[in-house]
């Protein structure tokens, strides 16, 4: 969050966006069945465009991981998807033709076809995500055996070596076991593993949380370089919003199982529309500038079993109105705005003027005078 230069808007982002590769409409996920079920995700709407990085940020328990795993039906028991649609727009590499696949209606056989070859997942802890009794080579080539049966053993091996080189690992590591590698190397192996079939979508669940900051940086930079080279779309889940500001094209903020704001990264950083987003952005200290008083967000997230009425954020919101206590705001475009950013807040419905921090205008042209992070916290006091 320190370097202002990184947050200036990228001119490339203002071109016409690419077509969607994954559409999520009204997704609902419960834990458990019947009367004792607890709703973990409510009415999630997302659009992931081809080649784009979509970040999903939220506190622990906000439902972001649940959402990510539910997308490809990898959610563990007792998770149940209880509503909505997830449509994968699969584009054939040879013909360029796009097929729409309803992931929620797919059976095991169909799912297996698209898994990993089109949609791959990078898990949080590589130590736990790698099979401790299998060699690295084996873990890279098993998907080749299944999804590319026409490849020979030498071809598979060659491809594995190629992937390892791409992430900066020596080929002699093929014969290693996971416990013989360092933390950063393990994560790189995971990334190589995920990209080996050149999927169209890569879902990353806090891929660098378990690493130290320096390694984190390296790996993320390599990741983004690979993304530029191979062109896959990324869903990046994290609790660290500052990472997303740098990496993501679009960001969705989740709270209490709901998406409360969705916007382009720069838009969100400079001109948030939801009080929770504002609170999150104010939580990062700046490395430069004067000392400022840090504002957190008082209170804690509600338990899934005891949700407040109305807007789920209202107990912690500094701008809560009467309406917020009883009616839940829908996720819509803020009043008087173009573009396709959305937010779930009554302050933006046009009936009143939103408070100044939530009404900033984000210029669409390149390099305005970007506000210093310190400005945000000062103006909310």
């Amino acid at each position, binding site marked *: 969050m320190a370097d202002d230069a990184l947050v200036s808007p990228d001119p490339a982002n203002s071109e016409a966006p690419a077509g969607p590769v994954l559409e999520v409409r009204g997704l609902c996920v419960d834990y458990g*069945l*019947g*009367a004792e079920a607890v709703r973990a995700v409510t009415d999630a709407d997302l659009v992931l465009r081809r080649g784009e990085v979509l970040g999903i940020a939220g506190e622990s328990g906000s439902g972001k991981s649940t959402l990510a795993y539910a997308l490809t*039906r990898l959610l563990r028991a007792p998770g*149940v*998807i*209880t509503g909505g649609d997830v449509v994968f727009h699969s584009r054939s590499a040879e013909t360029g033709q796009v097929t729409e696949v309803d992931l929620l209606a797919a059976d095991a056989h169909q799912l297996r076809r698209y898994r990993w070859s089109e949609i791959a997942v990078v898990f949080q802890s590589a130590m736990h995500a790698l099979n401790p009794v299998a060699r690295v080579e084996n873990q890279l080539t098993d998907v080749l055996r299944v999804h590319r049966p026409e490849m020979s053993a030498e071809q598979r091996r060659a491809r594995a070596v190629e992937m390892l080189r791409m992430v900066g690992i020596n080929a002699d590591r093929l014969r290693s076991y996971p416990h013989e590698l360092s933390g950063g190397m393990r994560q790189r192996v995971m990334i190589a593993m995920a990209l080996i079939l050149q999927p169209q979508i890569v879902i990353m669940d806090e891929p660098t949380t378990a690493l130290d900051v320096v390694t984190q940086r390296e790996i993320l930079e390599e990741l983004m370089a690979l993304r530029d080279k191979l062109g896959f779309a990324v869903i990046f889940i994290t609790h660290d919003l500052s990472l997303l500001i740098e990496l993501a094209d679009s960001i969705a903020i989740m709270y209490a199982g709901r998406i409360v704001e969705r916007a382009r990264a720069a838009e969100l950083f400079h001109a948030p529309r939801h009080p929770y987003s504002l609170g999150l952005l104010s939580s990062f200290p700046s490395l430069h500038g004067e000392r400022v008083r840090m504002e957190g967000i008082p209170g804690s997230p509600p338990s899934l079993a005891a949700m407040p009425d109305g807007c789920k954020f209202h107990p912690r919101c500094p701008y809560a109105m009467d309406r917020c206590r009883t009616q839940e705001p829908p996720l819509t475009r803020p009043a008087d705005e173009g573009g396709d950013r959305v937010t779930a807040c009554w302050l933006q419905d046009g009936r009143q003027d939103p408070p100044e921090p939530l009404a900033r205008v984000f210029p669409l042209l390149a390099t305005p005078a970007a506000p210093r992070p310190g400005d945000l916290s000062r103006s909310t006091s």
Partner: protein
Amino acid sequence: MSVVGVATAEPAGTGARRRKSRITKSPKIVVGAAILAFFVFIAIFGPTLAPHSASWQASNSSAFAQPPSAKFWLGTDRQQHDILSQVLAGGRSTMVIAFVAGIVASVLSILFGVTAGYIGGLVDDVLSIIANIFLALPGLLILMVVMKPLPAGDTDNPILIGSVIALTAWAYGARVLRAQTLALRDQDYVESARIIGERRPRIIVSEILPNLLPILASSFIFTVIYGIGIYVVLSILGIINPAQASWGTMIQNAQGASAMISNDWWWYAPPALCVALLGIGLALLNFGIDEIVNPRVRSRKGSRRGVRFQLGLTPVVRADRSPNSDVPAPVMEGES
């Protein structure tokens, strides 16, 4: 024998109340405890309840075992002893010895296992080697060799016999306790106790031991089952010849008199069934305790309302109504 997989535990006391209600609701524990209570009752009150003394003989003349009748509910053996009386009296020595074995083995396994796990280092190495040696030696054989030369009077001493049996059984519990102590030692609340300056024995007793209770209970029961089996076998083989009738000696007498061939089932079936039933009751208790300690392992109904949970295939159940409506549903996690 089960693989215990609990690596984290709460500071003593927090889970106790929750566990108590689960204890009373689990059918395995209830049935197992009931069976055990029944046999403990017999062990204590058996001889007084028996219609005759175990060594009483109905007559000296007849040499035929009499089948069950109104006079002798379980019939008699060849020497005209009342089987029912023998069964009622025979439980005592078996249970006493098995419990003594269980207690001695538990004490030994705590001494070796917890100490080795907590202190570590050389102490751990030495104690572990000793335990592993005992673990590898086949218990029954050693007992056979050791007990055979013992004079008859000593075999009457339940403490002695129980202790000797315990010597072959403690190593398993010690190994499990050591593993668990190792895991617990690094828990935060133990660490903080250490920092505060609590003395080592006190930490072991007040922080670690309470969390080891479920495993201790489980290995105690396991040792008792083992003790019963060993004692019965040793009796049947004639290595132990206590003065009073025990279930094991009853079976031995029956075998010696070829009761199987002459089809005197009432002679050998009751003691055999008693042993089997007691073993089952204890095993049920063990199973039940295991389920409480390791909730993931509980038998759970796989498909509720037709929804099957399978790894990698999250089910899609589209509800017509909101989840907070009053749809009657079966119990969430069935205790089956």
